[in-house]
């Protein structure tokens, strides 16, 4: 395992993630994209299969994903929300991200970090709807001219059958 980040770097990354969570809560997606996301990002939420431990079947040749986005894909998702024609978000839902269990490590490349974190996302909509999603993120951050940027994010999703009607929100 690569070496853990020092206290100051750890604090800096933690602040970055807390700020990211606040941008999501305030629906400032464009700002998130422009200030935190690397142009070469891969934002990925793969699904998994419930198999027996001793199963002999090879994994799927074309593993499906709920998100398999590059920078332009993410930007189009944000543009969609910015049209103000997404009726599901009008009135808007209320989303809150809790980010915990943060680990920060120096990656193999000197300008990159590997991080692990857990999340709890709650989404409240309309009168009574509340959904809660708990999972994990495995990120790679890259240092650019304007600080750390999200280069890779793998979202680890524990629900095989997604219990929410959709997952159209950023994690």
């Amino acid at each position, binding site marked *: 395992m690569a070496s853990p980040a020092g206290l100051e770097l750890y604090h800096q990354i933690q602040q970055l993630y807390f700020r990211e969570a606040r941008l999501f809560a305030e629906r400032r997606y464009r700002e998130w994209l422009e200030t935190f996301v690397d142009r070469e990002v891969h934002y990925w*939420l793969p*699904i998994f*299969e*419930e*198999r*027996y431990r001793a*199963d*002999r*079947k090879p994994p*799927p*040749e*074309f593993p*499906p*994903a*709920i*998100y*398999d*986005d590059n920078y332009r*894909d993410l930007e*189009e*998702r944000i*543009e*969609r*929300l910015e*049209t*103000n*024609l*997404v*009726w*599901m978000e009008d009135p808007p839902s209320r989303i809150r991200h809790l980010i915990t269990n943060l680990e920060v490590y120096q990656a193999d490349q000197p300008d990159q970090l590997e991080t692990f974190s857990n999340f709890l996302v709650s989404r409240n909509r309309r009168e009574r709807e509340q959904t809660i999603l708990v999972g994990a993120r495995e990120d790679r951050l890259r240092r650019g001219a304007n600080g750390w940027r999200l280069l890779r994010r793998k979202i680890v999703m524990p629900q*095989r*059958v*997604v*219990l*929410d*009607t*959709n*997952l*159209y929100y950023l994690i």
Partner: protein
Amino acid sequence: MSIDIRNLIDVRNGKQKKRIFWDEELYQLELDRIFGRCWLFLTHESEIPKPGDFFCTYMGEEPVIVVRTRAGELRGFLNTCTHRGNQLCQAESGNTRAFTCSYHGWSFDLDGRLAAVPLEADAYHHRIDKAALGLRAVPRVESFGGFVFGCFDPEAPPLRDYLGEMAWYLETFTACGGAELLGPPLKSVLHCNWKIPCENFICDSYHIGWTHAAALKVLGGPLAAMSGNSQAPPGIGAQVSTRHGHGFGIIWDAAPALHRDPAFADFLRAKQPRVAAQLGETRGRLYTAHWDAGIFPNCSFLYGTQVWKMWHPRGPRECEVWTWTLVEKEMSAELKRKIQKEALRTFGTAGTFESDDGQNMYGCTYTNRGPFARRGEMLGAMGLERDAAHPELPGLYNESNYSEAALRGFYRFYAEMLEARGWDEVAAHTRSMAGGGHGAAGAARD
């Protein structure tokens, strides 16, 4: 029977009572008479290619295991142990030699035979008839173009006849090189009655411009003008309803409209002459059209967008949607991957289009909480006066895709299955219809 089906479904005028989305008693009748008697999509052969491969799914509310036997045949079994009824297989797919129950360890082979009972001599003193305790088989499992269906009713017609005229249409993408599904499926919960997404996929072009206004606007291209209903879709298309409740809407020349990468459109254009030569000009033209389609009762797909869906009912007010990517076998691995990305990006669990629909489907279901709302009815009469026959397209034809012809066909057969005593009655009705192969058109006028 205490439910008056004719009161719920007004076939002639294209109206349905709202309580069909809410009523528990009706739901139990649907499980018996529709899910218990119709052919239901299970999986695609490409998901279980080798002996011992299995895939667990549902037929209505019944958990079933679909397995490829040592002899290479496809079999289906109720996923329940014949001892005390525990769920037998707890994995969703894989490859195995046997299925062993987690309760007492009874073990069943790939043909469903009870192969091993632990401590048999001590527990049963050799007085257990293992041959009589095999898994309960799904009596009918058949496949069409690699798409595997199962049916609980031994009296049902063969799958090919059940699909009927729809099979002729499906051949457009299954008969010339073959199709397959990329799994495992995405799975998520929708808080709505199962029929709502079925009717939405089988006919509803009308909602696209409004429900999906945002996604269309961002997408650009030929369909962007539909955003906010500023314009009907180019060429407007047509709608087809076939016997046994299947059907689809067509937007001509629009197959890869939601796919941003041109590689898919290039593939279709290059292959089209071959499809036309092999299957005729009509299906050659359908090959590059976009279809929003339904196979009765609860299987839907979008040809052109390339998603394949099952809406598994979970009580009258919830369903589970399973989503595969539809591709052609002749496509390169790279093209399949590109199509999968675009299909799931638009109609997956975080789909730019799919995520627009959930709120509407919830709303159509849950406004029926109260008895006053439930006594009301819904209108499905769009284009009713234009339901007709077409010289080349089998089934009932409507010259506009802004129509509810296929929805009416869905509910016509829905009502028929709920009322019929058995398949012989349905078959007699088919024979009595005018027009032979164009039976649905006859049914519409009766």
